[in-house]
Protein backbone atom coordinates (compact mmCIF):
# COMPACT_ATOMS: atom_id res chain seq x y z
CA UNK A 1 0.00 0.00 0.00
CA UNK A 2 1.42 3.31 -1.09
CA UNK A 3 -0.14 5.90 1.19
CA UNK A 4 1.99 8.71 -0.14
CA UNK A 5 0.51 8.03 -3.56
CA UNK A 6 -2.98 8.10 -2.09
CA UNK A 7 -2.34 11.50 -0.57
CA UNK A 8 -0.75 12.72 -3.77
CA UNK A 9 -3.70 11.63 -5.89
CA UNK A 10 -6.13 13.24 -3.49
CA UNK A 11 -4.06 16.41 -3.37
CA UNK A 12 -3.65 16.78 -7.12
CA UNK A 13 -7.38 16.31 -7.59
CA UNK A 14 -8.04 18.79 -4.82
CA UNK A 15 -6.11 21.63 -6.41
CA UNK A 16 -7.30 20.81 -9.91
CA UNK A 17 -9.66 22.82 -12.10
CA UNK A 18 -12.57 20.45 -11.51
CA UNK A 19 -12.46 21.24 -7.81
CA UNK A 20 -12.44 24.93 -8.66
CA UNK A 21 -15.46 24.47 -10.90
CA UNK A 22 -17.28 22.56 -8.17
CA UNK A 23 -16.38 25.31 -5.72
CA UNK A 24 -17.91 27.91 -8.01
CA UNK A 25 -21.08 25.87 -8.35
CA UNK A 26 -21.19 25.27 -4.60
CA UNK A 27 -20.84 29.01 -3.97
CA UNK A 28 -23.89 29.63 -6.12
CA UNK A 29 -25.86 26.87 -4.46
CA UNK A 30 -24.90 28.35 -1.13
CA UNK A 31 -26.35 31.70 -2.14
CA UNK A 32 -29.63 29.97 -2.87
CA UNK A 33 -29.72 27.29 -0.18
CA UNK A 34 -27.50 28.70 2.54
CA UNK A 35 -28.50 32.35 2.38
CA UNK A 36 -31.96 32.46 0.81
CA UNK A 37 -33.29 29.07 1.89
CA UNK A 38 -34.18 28.01 -1.65
CA UNK A 39 -34.04 24.30 -2.37
CA UNK A 40 -32.64 24.15 -5.87
CA UNK A 41 -32.32 20.45 -6.61
CA UNK A 42 -31.61 21.12 -10.26
CA UNK A 43 -28.30 22.96 -10.07
CA UNK A 44 -26.90 20.67 -12.74
CA UNK A 45 -29.37 22.15 -15.24
CA UNK A 46 -27.83 25.60 -14.84
CA UNK A 47 -24.39 24.13 -15.40
CA UNK A 48 -25.60 22.24 -18.44
CA UNK A 49 -27.33 25.23 -19.94
CA UNK A 50 -24.22 27.36 -19.46
CA UNK A 51 -21.97 24.76 -21.05
CA UNK A 52 -24.29 24.05 -23.97
CA UNK A 53 -25.00 27.72 -24.55
CA UNK A 54 -21.27 28.26 -24.93
CA UNK A 55 -20.58 25.17 -27.03
CA UNK A 56 -23.50 25.72 -29.38
CA UNK A 57 -22.55 29.34 -29.96
CA UNK A 58 -19.04 28.30 -30.94
CA UNK A 59 -20.44 25.46 -33.06
CA UNK A 60 -22.64 27.97 -34.86
CA UNK A 61 -19.58 30.03 -35.76
CA UNK A 62 -19.48 32.47 -32.85
CA UNK A 63 -16.36 32.99 -30.82
CA UNK A 64 -15.83 31.45 -27.40
CA UNK A 65 -15.90 34.94 -25.90
CA UNK A 66 -19.39 35.41 -27.25
CA UNK A 67 -20.36 31.88 -26.25
CA UNK A 68 -19.59 32.37 -22.56
CA UNK A 69 -21.98 35.30 -22.05
CA UNK A 70 -24.59 33.51 -24.14
CA UNK A 71 -24.29 30.50 -21.83
CA UNK A 72 -24.57 32.65 -18.73
CA UNK A 73 -27.57 34.58 -20.02
CA UNK A 74 -29.34 31.37 -20.94
CA UNK A 75 -28.92 30.16 -17.38
CA UNK A 76 -30.28 33.45 -16.02
CA UNK A 77 -33.27 33.00 -18.27
CA UNK A 78 -33.72 29.46 -16.99
CA UNK A 79 -33.70 30.81 -13.44
CA UNK A 80 -36.41 33.26 -14.39
CA UNK A 81 -38.55 30.62 -16.06
CA UNK A 82 -38.17 28.22 -13.14
CA UNK A 83 -38.78 30.88 -10.55
CA UNK A 84 -41.90 32.48 -11.97
CA UNK A 85 -44.24 29.54 -11.37
CA UNK A 86 -42.61 28.17 -8.21
CA UNK A 87 -41.24 30.92 -6.01
CA UNK A 88 -44.62 32.08 -4.77
CA UNK A 89 -45.26 28.56 -3.50
CA UNK A 90 -43.83 26.60 -0.59
CA UNK A 91 -40.19 25.52 -0.66
CA UNK A 92 -41.01 21.96 -1.71
CA UNK A 93 -42.48 23.05 -5.02
CA UNK A 94 -39.21 24.60 -6.10
CA UNK A 95 -37.37 21.43 -5.08
CA UNK A 96 -39.75 19.22 -7.04
CA UNK A 97 -39.78 21.42 -10.10
CA UNK A 98 -36.03 21.93 -10.27
CA UNK A 99 -35.17 18.25 -9.93
CA UNK A 100 -37.76 17.34 -12.55
CA UNK A 101 -36.86 20.10 -14.95
CA UNK A 102 -33.14 19.34 -14.75
CA UNK A 103 -33.74 15.74 -15.70
CA UNK A 104 -36.25 16.64 -18.40
CA UNK A 105 -33.88 19.20 -19.91
CA UNK A 106 -31.16 16.58 -20.06
CA UNK A 107 -33.52 14.20 -21.85
CA UNK A 108 -34.44 16.93 -24.31
CA UNK A 109 -30.81 17.86 -24.98
CA UNK A 110 -30.10 14.17 -25.50
CA UNK A 111 -33.04 13.56 -27.81
CA UNK A 112 -32.91 13.22 -31.56
CA UNK A 113 -35.35 16.08 -31.69
CA UNK A 114 -32.71 18.48 -30.35
CA UNK A 115 -29.88 16.80 -32.21
CA UNK A 116 -29.42 19.46 -34.90
CA UNK A 117 -28.54 21.85 -32.08
CA UNK A 118 -26.96 19.65 -29.42
CA UNK A 119 -25.64 16.69 -31.41
CA UNK A 120 -27.64 14.35 -29.16
CA UNK A 121 -25.81 11.85 -27.00
CA UNK A 122 -22.53 12.52 -28.74
CA UNK A 123 -22.37 16.09 -27.56
CA UNK A 124 -20.07 18.80 -28.83
CA UNK A 125 -16.30 18.75 -28.63
CA UNK A 126 -13.37 21.01 -29.22
CA UNK A 127 -15.03 24.39 -28.82
CA UNK A 128 -12.53 25.91 -26.41
CA UNK A 129 -9.43 26.13 -28.57
CA UNK A 130 -9.53 29.90 -28.28
CA UNK A 131 -9.04 29.53 -24.54
CA UNK A 132 -6.06 27.21 -24.79
CA UNK A 133 -4.50 29.40 -27.47
CA UNK A 134 -3.95 31.93 -24.71
CA UNK A 135 -2.09 29.42 -22.55
CA UNK A 136 1.32 30.94 -21.74
CA UNK A 137 2.68 27.60 -20.51
CA UNK A 138 3.89 25.09 -23.07
CA UNK A 139 1.10 22.49 -23.18
CA UNK A 140 3.45 19.50 -23.11
CA UNK A 141 5.66 20.79 -20.28
CA UNK A 142 5.31 19.40 -16.79
CA UNK A 143 5.42 21.46 -13.61
CA UNK A 144 6.04 20.21 -10.10
CA UNK A 145 8.33 18.00 -8.09
CA UNK A 146 8.82 14.26 -8.50
CA UNK A 147 5.49 12.63 -9.18
CA UNK A 148 3.59 15.63 -7.81
CA UNK A 149 3.19 17.29 -11.18
CA UNK A 150 0.68 18.91 -13.47
CA UNK A 151 0.85 19.62 -17.18
CA UNK A 152 1.13 23.11 -18.61
CA UNK A 153 -2.41 22.79 -19.88
CA UNK A 154 -3.72 21.97 -16.39
CA UNK A 155 -1.67 24.71 -14.82
CA UNK A 156 -3.24 27.29 -17.13
CA UNK A 157 -6.70 25.90 -16.46
CA UNK A 158 -6.04 25.88 -12.71
CA UNK A 159 -4.88 29.47 -12.59
CA UNK A 160 -7.88 30.69 -14.49
CA UNK A 161 -10.45 28.62 -12.62
CA UNK A 162 -9.14 29.41 -9.15
CA UNK A 163 -9.12 33.07 -10.13
CA UNK A 164 -12.76 32.69 -11.02
CA UNK A 165 -13.37 31.10 -7.62
CA UNK A 166 -11.75 34.09 -5.95
CA UNK A 167 -13.82 36.58 -7.95
CA UNK A 168 -17.06 34.75 -7.28
CA UNK A 169 -16.34 34.52 -3.56
CA UNK A 170 -15.57 38.24 -3.44
CA UNK A 171 -18.78 39.00 -5.29
CA UNK A 172 -20.88 36.90 -2.93
CA UNK A 173 -19.11 38.38 0.06
CA UNK A 174 -19.94 41.88 -1.09
CA UNK A 175 -23.56 40.96 -1.72
CA UNK A 176 -24.08 39.05 1.50
CA UNK A 177 -22.46 41.67 3.71
CA UNK A 178 -24.77 44.32 2.27
CA UNK A 179 -28.35 45.11 3.30
CA UNK A 180 -29.41 43.07 0.28
CA UNK A 181 -27.78 40.01 1.82
CA UNK A 182 -29.48 40.77 5.11
CA UNK A 183 -32.86 40.69 3.41
CA UNK A 184 -31.91 37.36 1.83
CA UNK A 185 -31.09 35.91 5.23
CA UNK A 186 -34.32 37.31 6.61
CA UNK A 187 -36.21 35.49 3.87
CA UNK A 188 -34.37 32.30 4.75
CA UNK A 189 -35.44 32.67 8.37
CA UNK A 190 -39.08 33.48 7.74
CA UNK A 191 -40.41 34.77 4.48
CA UNK A 192 -43.77 35.87 5.91
CA UNK A 193 -41.96 38.04 8.43
CA UNK A 194 -39.88 39.59 5.64
CA UNK A 195 -43.03 40.20 3.66
CA UNK A 196 -44.76 41.84 6.60
CA UNK A 197 -41.82 44.23 6.78
CA UNK A 198 -42.32 45.42 3.23
CA UNK A 199 -39.82 43.18 1.44
CA UNK A 200 -40.67 41.91 -2.02
CA UNK A 201 -39.82 38.34 -1.16
CA UNK A 202 -40.69 36.99 -4.58
CA UNK A 203 -38.40 39.50 -6.27
CA UNK A 204 -35.50 38.70 -3.97
CA UNK A 205 -35.90 34.97 -4.43
CA UNK A 206 -35.99 35.43 -8.16
CA UNK A 207 -32.77 37.43 -7.97
CA UNK A 208 -31.17 34.72 -5.90
CA UNK A 209 -32.21 32.05 -8.36
CA UNK A 210 -31.01 34.07 -11.35
CA UNK A 211 -27.69 35.19 -9.87
CA UNK A 212 -27.10 31.67 -8.57
CA UNK A 213 -28.01 30.37 -12.02
CA UNK A 214 -25.48 32.66 -13.67
CA UNK A 215 -22.73 31.52 -11.32
CA UNK A 216 -23.79 27.91 -11.82
CA UNK A 217 -23.44 28.47 -15.55
CA UNK A 218 -19.91 29.82 -15.04
CA UNK A 219 -19.07 26.61 -13.25
CA UNK A 220 -20.55 24.52 -16.06
CA UNK A 221 -18.56 26.52 -18.60
CA UNK A 222 -15.31 25.98 -16.66
CA UNK A 223 -15.91 22.24 -16.61
CA UNK A 224 -16.79 22.18 -20.28
CA UNK A 225 -13.69 24.14 -21.25
CA UNK A 226 -11.49 21.92 -19.12
CA UNK A 227 -12.86 18.85 -20.85
CA UNK A 228 -13.32 20.50 -24.28
CA UNK A 229 -16.47 18.43 -24.30
CA UNK A 230 -20.16 18.67 -23.46
CA UNK A 231 -22.33 15.55 -23.39
CA UNK A 232 -25.77 15.29 -21.80
CA UNK A 233 -24.78 12.39 -19.58
CA UNK A 234 -22.25 14.50 -17.72
CA UNK A 235 -25.21 16.32 -16.17
CA UNK A 236 -26.85 13.57 -14.17
CA UNK A 237 -28.84 14.57 -11.06
CA UNK A 238 -26.14 13.10 -8.86
CA UNK A 239 -23.84 16.04 -9.55
CA UNK A 240 -26.37 18.33 -7.87
CA UNK A 241 -26.37 16.17 -4.76
CA UNK A 242 -22.60 16.00 -4.65
CA UNK A 243 -22.70 19.79 -4.64
CA UNK A 244 -25.11 19.73 -1.70
CA UNK A 245 -22.68 17.51 0.16
CA UNK A 246 -19.95 20.03 -0.58
CA UNK A 247 -21.99 23.00 0.61
CA UNK A 248 -23.15 21.34 3.80
CA UNK A 249 -19.75 19.83 4.51
CA UNK A 250 -18.10 23.23 4.27
CA UNK A 251 -20.91 25.09 5.99
CA UNK A 252 -24.09 26.38 4.39
CA UNK A 253 -24.58 30.07 4.95
CA UNK A 254 -20.88 30.85 5.30
CA UNK A 255 -18.80 32.71 2.75
CA UNK A 256 -15.88 30.30 2.46
CA UNK A 257 -17.69 27.09 3.40
CA UNK A 258 -18.44 25.97 -0.15
CA UNK A 259 -14.81 26.39 -1.21
CA UNK A 260 -13.46 24.52 1.80
CA UNK A 261 -16.13 21.89 1.24
CA UNK A 262 -15.07 21.43 -2.37
CA UNK A 263 -11.39 21.05 -1.43
CA UNK A 264 -12.05 18.51 1.31
CA UNK A 265 -14.61 16.59 -0.70
CA UNK A 266 -12.39 16.24 -3.74
CA UNK A 267 -9.41 15.21 -1.63
CA UNK A 268 -11.41 12.49 0.07
CA UNK A 269 -13.26 11.42 -3.08
CA UNK A 270 -10.14 10.94 -5.17
CA UNK A 271 -7.99 9.79 -2.30
CA UNK A 272 -10.58 7.06 -1.76
CA UNK A 273 -10.30 6.01 -5.43
CA UNK A 274 -6.58 5.80 -5.13
CA UNK A 275 -6.79 3.96 -1.83
CA UNK A 276 -9.21 1.39 -3.26
CA UNK A 277 -7.08 0.90 -6.36
CA UNK A 278 -4.05 0.39 -4.21
CA UNK A 279 -5.90 -1.98 -1.88
CA UNK A 280 -7.22 -3.99 -4.79
CA UNK A 281 -3.75 -4.37 -6.18
CA UNK A 282 -2.12 -5.27 -2.89
CA UNK A 283 -4.66 -6.99 -0.67
CA UNK A 284 -6.22 -10.11 -2.10
CA UNK A 285 -9.52 -10.18 -0.30
CA UNK A 286 -10.35 -6.59 -1.23
CA UNK A 287 -10.05 -7.44 -4.91
CA UNK A 288 -12.20 -10.51 -4.31
CA UNK A 289 -15.17 -8.74 -2.82
CA UNK A 290 -15.16 -5.49 -4.80
CA UNK A 291 -14.50 -4.86 -8.46
CA UNK A 292 -13.16 -1.40 -9.35
CA UNK A 293 -16.57 -0.44 -10.74
CA UNK A 294 -18.25 -1.53 -7.54
CA UNK A 295 -15.74 0.41 -5.49
CA UNK A 296 -16.85 3.52 -7.38
CA UNK A 297 -20.47 2.73 -6.53
CA UNK A 298 -19.66 2.12 -2.89
CA UNK A 299 -18.11 5.54 -2.86
CA UNK A 300 -21.42 7.03 -4.02
CA UNK A 301 -23.27 5.14 -1.29
CA UNK A 302 -20.92 6.77 1.17
CA UNK A 303 -21.64 10.18 -0.35
CA UNK A 304 -25.34 9.65 0.31
CA UNK A 305 -24.79 8.41 3.84
CA UNK A 306 -22.37 11.27 4.43
CA UNK A 307 -24.99 13.81 3.34
CA UNK A 308 -27.51 12.36 5.79
CA UNK A 309 -25.08 12.22 8.68
CA UNK A 310 -23.82 15.75 8.08
CA UNK A 311 -27.32 17.17 7.91
CA UNK A 312 -28.30 15.36 11.09
CA UNK A 313 -25.21 15.69 13.24
CA UNK A 314 -23.29 18.65 11.93
CA UNK A 315 -25.62 20.87 9.92
CA UNK A 316 -23.33 23.85 10.41
CA UNK A 317 -20.54 22.06 8.51
CA UNK A 318 -16.88 22.84 9.00
CA UNK A 319 -17.04 26.62 8.81
CA UNK A 320 -20.41 27.23 10.41
CA UNK A 321 -21.03 28.64 13.84
CA UNK A 322 -22.26 25.98 16.22
CA UNK A 323 -24.21 28.52 18.25
CA UNK A 324 -26.01 29.68 15.17
CA UNK A 325 -27.06 26.16 14.30
CA UNK A 326 -28.40 25.57 17.78
CA UNK A 327 -30.78 28.49 17.57
CA UNK A 328 -34.31 27.37 17.96
CA UNK A 329 -36.56 28.50 15.15
CA UNK A 330 -39.68 28.58 17.26
Amino acid sequence: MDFIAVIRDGFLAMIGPVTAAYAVSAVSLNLQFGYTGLLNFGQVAFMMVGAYGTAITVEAGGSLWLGIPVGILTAVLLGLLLGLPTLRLRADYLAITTIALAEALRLIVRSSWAEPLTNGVFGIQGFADAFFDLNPFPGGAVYGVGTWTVTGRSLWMMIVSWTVVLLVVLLIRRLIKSPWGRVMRAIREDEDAARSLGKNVFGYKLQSLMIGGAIGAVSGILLAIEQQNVTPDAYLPRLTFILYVIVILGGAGTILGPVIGALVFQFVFFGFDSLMASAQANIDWVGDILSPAEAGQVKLILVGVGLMLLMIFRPQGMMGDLNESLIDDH
Partner: protein
Amino acid sequence: MTIDPNALADVAAVPGVAKPDPIVTIDGLERSFGGVHAVNVDHLEIQRGTITSLIGPNGAGKTTLFNLISGFDEPDNGEWDLDGGGLVGISAYQVARRGMVRTFQLTKSLARLTVMENMHVADQTNPGETLRGALFGGWRKAEDEATEKATALLERFGLTHMADEFAGSLSGGQRKLLEVARALMVDPDVIMLDEPMAGVNPALTQSLLHHITGLREDGMTVIFIEHDMDVVQEISDWVVVLAEGSVIAEGPPASIGSNEIVIDAYLGRTHREEEE
Protein backbone atom coordinates in the same frame (compact mmCIF):
# COMPACT_ATOMS: atom_id res chain seq x y z
CA MET B 1 -53.99 66.38 10.95
CA THR B 2 -55.09 66.70 14.53
CA ILE B 3 -56.73 63.82 16.23
CA ASP B 4 -59.70 64.40 18.42
CA PRO B 5 -59.66 62.03 21.38
CA ASN B 6 -63.40 62.29 21.78
CA ALA B 7 -64.24 61.73 18.13
CA LEU B 8 -65.97 58.44 18.91
CA ALA B 9 -68.07 59.79 21.75
CA ASP B 10 -71.13 60.33 19.59
CA VAL B 11 -70.81 57.21 17.45
CA ALA B 12 -73.61 54.70 18.01
CA ALA B 13 -72.62 51.26 19.24
CA VAL B 14 -74.10 49.25 16.38
CA PRO B 15 -72.25 46.87 14.05
CA GLY B 16 -71.06 48.52 10.86
CA VAL B 17 -71.55 52.06 12.12
CA ALA B 18 -69.82 54.88 10.22
CA LYS B 19 -66.94 56.69 11.97
CA PRO B 20 -66.13 60.40 11.60
CA ASP B 21 -62.62 59.81 10.22
CA PRO B 22 -62.03 56.19 9.21
CA ILE B 23 -58.52 55.17 8.14
CA VAL B 24 -59.50 51.59 7.27
CA THR B 25 -62.83 50.70 5.67
CA ILE B 26 -63.92 47.13 4.97
CA ASP B 27 -66.85 46.15 2.77
CA GLY B 28 -68.44 42.77 2.13
CA LEU B 29 -65.29 40.82 3.02
CA GLU B 30 -65.73 37.05 2.81
CA ARG B 31 -63.40 34.10 3.10
CA SER B 32 -64.39 30.51 3.61
CA PHE B 33 -62.37 27.33 4.03
CA GLY B 34 -64.29 24.39 2.70
CA GLY B 35 -67.60 24.77 4.49
CA VAL B 36 -66.35 27.09 7.24
CA HIS B 37 -67.18 30.75 6.80
CA ALA B 38 -64.08 32.08 8.52
CA VAL B 39 -64.73 35.75 7.74
CA ASN B 40 -67.94 37.43 6.65
CA VAL B 41 -67.73 41.13 7.46
CA ASP B 42 -70.43 43.33 6.00
CA HIS B 43 -69.04 46.71 6.81
CA LEU B 44 -66.42 47.89 9.28
CA GLU B 45 -64.62 51.18 9.78
CA ILE B 46 -61.60 51.83 11.96
CA GLN B 47 -61.26 55.34 13.33
CA ARG B 48 -57.93 57.07 12.73
CA GLY B 49 -55.68 57.53 15.72
CA THR B 50 -57.49 55.17 18.03
CA ILE B 51 -56.80 51.86 19.64
CA THR B 52 -59.41 49.45 18.33
CA SER B 53 -59.57 46.03 19.97
CA LEU B 54 -60.72 43.05 17.98
CA ILE B 55 -62.14 40.39 20.27
CA GLY B 56 -64.03 37.18 19.85
CA PRO B 57 -63.87 33.52 20.80
CA ASN B 58 -61.24 31.19 19.39
CA GLY B 59 -61.84 30.48 15.72
CA ALA B 60 -63.95 33.61 15.32
CA GLY B 61 -61.88 34.63 12.29
CA LYS B 62 -59.77 37.39 13.82
CA THR B 63 -56.46 36.15 12.46
CA THR B 64 -58.04 35.40 9.10
CA LEU B 65 -59.37 38.97 8.98
CA PHE B 66 -55.84 40.24 9.65
CA ASN B 67 -54.45 37.94 6.97
CA LEU B 68 -56.97 39.25 4.46
CA ILE B 69 -56.53 42.95 4.99
CA SER B 70 -52.75 42.71 5.24
CA GLY B 71 -52.54 40.88 1.92
CA PHE B 72 -51.41 37.52 3.30
CA ASP B 73 -54.55 35.76 2.18
CA GLU B 74 -57.02 36.41 -0.61
CA PRO B 75 -60.73 36.84 0.10
CA ASP B 76 -63.45 35.20 -1.93
CA ASN B 77 -65.26 38.53 -2.07
CA GLY B 78 -65.09 42.05 -0.81
CA GLU B 79 -62.97 45.17 -0.77
CA TRP B 80 -61.16 47.28 1.76
CA ASP B 81 -59.02 50.37 1.71
CA LEU B 82 -56.38 52.18 3.67
CA ASP B 83 -56.81 55.94 3.84
CA GLY B 84 -58.92 55.90 0.68
CA GLY B 85 -56.52 53.72 -1.33
CA GLY B 86 -58.02 50.38 -2.33
CA LEU B 87 -56.03 47.37 -1.23
CA VAL B 88 -57.75 44.63 -3.24
CA GLY B 89 -55.12 42.54 -5.02
CA ILE B 90 -52.25 44.42 -3.39
CA SER B 91 -49.53 42.06 -2.20
CA ALA B 92 -48.54 41.83 1.43
CA TYR B 93 -45.24 43.64 1.13
CA GLN B 94 -46.87 46.56 -0.63
CA VAL B 95 -49.54 46.82 2.06
CA ALA B 96 -46.70 47.18 4.57
CA ARG B 97 -45.04 49.83 2.46
CA ARG B 98 -48.28 51.75 2.25
CA GLY B 99 -48.16 52.07 5.99
CA MET B 100 -50.14 49.18 7.41
CA VAL B 101 -47.96 46.69 9.26
CA ARG B 102 -49.05 43.56 11.07
CA THR B 103 -47.50 41.18 13.56
CA PHE B 104 -48.24 37.49 13.90
CA GLN B 105 -49.98 35.45 16.54
CA LEU B 106 -47.04 33.06 16.55
CA THR B 107 -44.08 35.37 16.75
CA LYS B 108 -41.91 35.45 13.68
CA SER B 109 -38.52 36.60 14.83
CA LEU B 110 -35.73 36.16 12.35
CA ALA B 111 -33.89 33.73 14.58
CA ARG B 112 -30.44 33.67 13.03
CA LEU B 113 -30.26 37.42 12.58
CA THR B 114 -29.23 39.60 15.47
CA VAL B 115 -31.79 41.81 17.16
CA MET B 116 -30.22 44.83 15.47
CA GLU B 117 -30.34 43.09 12.10
CA ASN B 118 -34.00 42.31 12.71
CA MET B 119 -34.59 46.02 13.16
CA HIS B 120 -32.62 46.91 10.04
CA VAL B 121 -34.62 44.55 7.87
CA ALA B 122 -37.70 46.61 8.69
CA ASP B 123 -36.12 49.80 7.38
CA GLN B 124 -37.73 50.91 4.11
CA THR B 125 -35.20 53.45 2.95
CA ASN B 126 -31.92 51.58 2.63
CA PRO B 127 -30.60 51.79 -0.96
CA GLY B 128 -28.28 48.87 -0.18
CA GLU B 129 -31.25 46.54 -0.32
CA THR B 130 -31.33 46.71 -4.09
CA LEU B 131 -28.91 44.64 -6.08
CA ARG B 132 -27.37 47.73 -7.58
CA GLY B 133 -26.94 49.36 -4.20
CA ALA B 134 -25.39 46.21 -2.79
CA LEU B 135 -22.89 46.00 -5.64
CA PHE B 136 -21.90 49.63 -5.93
CA GLY B 137 -22.18 50.71 -2.31
CA GLY B 138 -23.31 54.11 -1.11
CA TRP B 139 -25.64 52.74 1.53
CA ARG B 140 -23.55 53.42 4.62
CA LYS B 141 -25.23 56.68 5.45
CA ALA B 142 -28.72 55.24 5.29
CA GLU B 143 -27.48 52.30 7.34
CA ASP B 144 -26.14 54.58 10.06
CA GLU B 145 -29.35 56.56 10.20
CA ALA B 146 -31.34 53.35 10.51
CA THR B 147 -29.04 52.16 13.27
CA GLU B 148 -29.72 55.36 15.15
CA LYS B 149 -33.45 54.97 14.77
CA ALA B 150 -33.28 51.31 15.73
CA THR B 151 -31.17 52.06 18.78
CA ALA B 152 -33.78 54.51 20.01
CA LEU B 153 -36.57 51.99 19.48
CA LEU B 154 -34.67 49.21 21.21
CA GLU B 155 -34.01 51.55 24.08
CA ARG B 156 -37.70 52.31 24.33
CA PHE B 157 -38.55 48.60 24.41
CA GLY B 158 -35.78 47.71 26.81
CA LEU B 159 -33.89 45.54 24.35
CA THR B 160 -30.71 47.56 24.06
CA HIS B 161 -28.61 45.01 25.91
CA MET B 162 -29.72 42.31 23.48
CA ALA B 163 -28.95 44.26 20.28
CA ASP B 164 -26.11 42.02 19.17
CA GLU B 165 -27.62 38.71 20.24
CA PHE B 166 -29.37 36.38 17.82
CA ALA B 167 -33.11 37.00 17.94
CA GLY B 168 -33.51 33.25 18.39
CA SER B 169 -31.92 33.50 21.82
CA LEU B 170 -34.56 35.93 23.16
CA SER B 171 -37.28 34.84 25.56
CA GLY B 172 -40.85 34.58 24.28
CA GLY B 173 -41.81 37.93 25.78
CA GLN B 174 -38.74 39.65 24.41
CA ARG B 175 -39.58 38.32 20.96
CA LYS B 176 -43.01 39.88 21.20
CA LEU B 177 -41.41 43.20 22.12
CA LEU B 178 -38.93 42.87 19.29
CA GLU B 179 -41.73 42.19 16.87
CA VAL B 180 -43.54 45.36 17.86
CA ALA B 181 -40.34 47.41 17.83
CA ARG B 182 -39.48 46.00 14.42
CA ALA B 183 -42.93 46.84 13.07
CA LEU B 184 -42.40 50.43 14.24
CA MET B 185 -39.19 50.63 12.20
CA VAL B 186 -41.46 50.64 9.15
CA ASP B 187 -43.04 53.95 10.33
CA PRO B 188 -46.57 52.66 9.89
CA ASP B 189 -49.81 54.64 10.05
CA VAL B 190 -51.71 51.56 11.10
CA ILE B 191 -50.23 48.80 13.20
CA MET B 192 -52.06 45.49 13.60
CA LEU B 193 -51.08 43.32 16.54
CA ASP B 194 -52.24 39.71 16.68
CA GLU B 195 -52.42 38.71 20.36
CA PRO B 196 -49.27 40.56 21.41
CA MET B 197 -49.88 39.72 25.07
CA ALA B 198 -50.29 35.98 24.67
CA GLY B 199 -47.59 34.11 26.54
CA VAL B 200 -45.97 37.25 27.89
CA ASN B 201 -45.31 37.36 31.62
CA PRO B 202 -47.35 39.86 33.69
CA ALA B 203 -44.44 42.24 34.26
CA LEU B 204 -43.85 42.56 30.54
CA THR B 205 -47.57 42.81 29.85
CA GLN B 206 -47.75 46.10 31.70
CA SER B 207 -44.84 47.58 29.79
CA LEU B 208 -46.24 46.30 26.51
CA LEU B 209 -49.59 47.93 27.30
CA HIS B 210 -47.78 51.11 28.04
CA HIS B 211 -46.04 50.92 24.68
CA ILE B 212 -49.30 50.37 22.88
CA THR B 213 -50.92 53.44 24.39
CA GLY B 214 -47.70 55.25 23.50
CA LEU B 215 -48.27 54.40 19.84
CA ARG B 216 -51.60 56.18 19.91
CA GLU B 217 -49.91 59.22 21.38
CA ASP B 218 -47.51 59.13 18.41
CA GLY B 219 -50.52 59.41 16.13
CA MET B 220 -50.70 55.79 15.02
CA THR B 221 -53.85 53.76 14.59
CA VAL B 222 -53.67 50.48 16.48
CA ILE B 223 -55.81 47.45 15.78
CA PHE B 224 -55.15 44.66 18.17
CA ILE B 225 -56.46 41.23 18.91
CA GLU B 226 -56.71 40.40 22.57
CA HIS B 227 -58.43 37.87 24.80
CA ASP B 228 -58.05 39.45 28.21
CA MET B 229 -61.14 41.64 28.78
CA ASP B 230 -59.41 43.63 31.51
CA VAL B 231 -56.70 44.64 29.12
CA VAL B 232 -59.26 45.49 26.47
CA GLN B 233 -61.27 47.61 28.88
CA GLU B 234 -58.18 49.39 30.04
CA ILE B 235 -56.64 50.61 26.82
CA SER B 236 -59.07 50.53 23.93
CA ASP B 237 -61.06 53.41 22.53
CA TRP B 238 -63.32 51.13 20.60
CA VAL B 239 -64.04 47.40 20.62
CA VAL B 240 -65.14 45.22 17.71
CA VAL B 241 -66.57 41.79 18.52
CA LEU B 242 -66.24 39.04 15.96
CA ALA B 243 -68.07 35.72 16.17
CA GLU B 244 -68.19 33.07 13.46
CA GLY B 245 -66.63 35.51 11.04
CA SER B 246 -69.10 38.37 11.46
CA VAL B 247 -69.06 41.56 13.46
CA ILE B 248 -71.77 41.00 16.06
CA ALA B 249 -71.17 44.12 18.09
CA GLU B 250 -68.97 47.19 18.30
CA GLY B 251 -68.81 50.12 20.60
CA PRO B 252 -66.84 51.79 23.38
CA PRO B 253 -65.35 49.29 25.86
CA ALA B 254 -67.92 50.09 28.52
CA SER B 255 -70.81 49.17 26.24
CA ILE B 256 -69.33 45.78 25.35
CA GLY B 257 -69.13 44.19 28.77
CA SER B 258 -72.86 44.65 29.24
CA ASN B 259 -73.90 43.70 25.70
CA GLU B 260 -76.24 40.68 25.80
CA ILE B 261 -75.33 39.41 22.33
CA VAL B 262 -71.67 39.48 23.20
CA ILE B 263 -72.16 37.66 26.46
CA ASP B 264 -74.15 35.02 24.65
CA ALA B 265 -71.88 34.54 21.71
CA TYR B 266 -68.60 35.04 23.43
CA LEU B 267 -68.80 34.24 27.07
CA GLY B 268 -71.59 31.74 26.56
CA ARG B 269 -69.42 29.73 24.30
CA THR B 270 -66.48 29.93 26.67
CA HIS B 271 -68.69 28.59 29.42
CA ARG B 272 -69.80 25.74 27.27
CA GLU B 273 -66.22 24.91 26.37
CA GLU B 274 -65.27 24.85 30.00
CA GLU B 275 -68.02 22.47 30.84
CA GLU B 276 -66.89 19.92 28.25
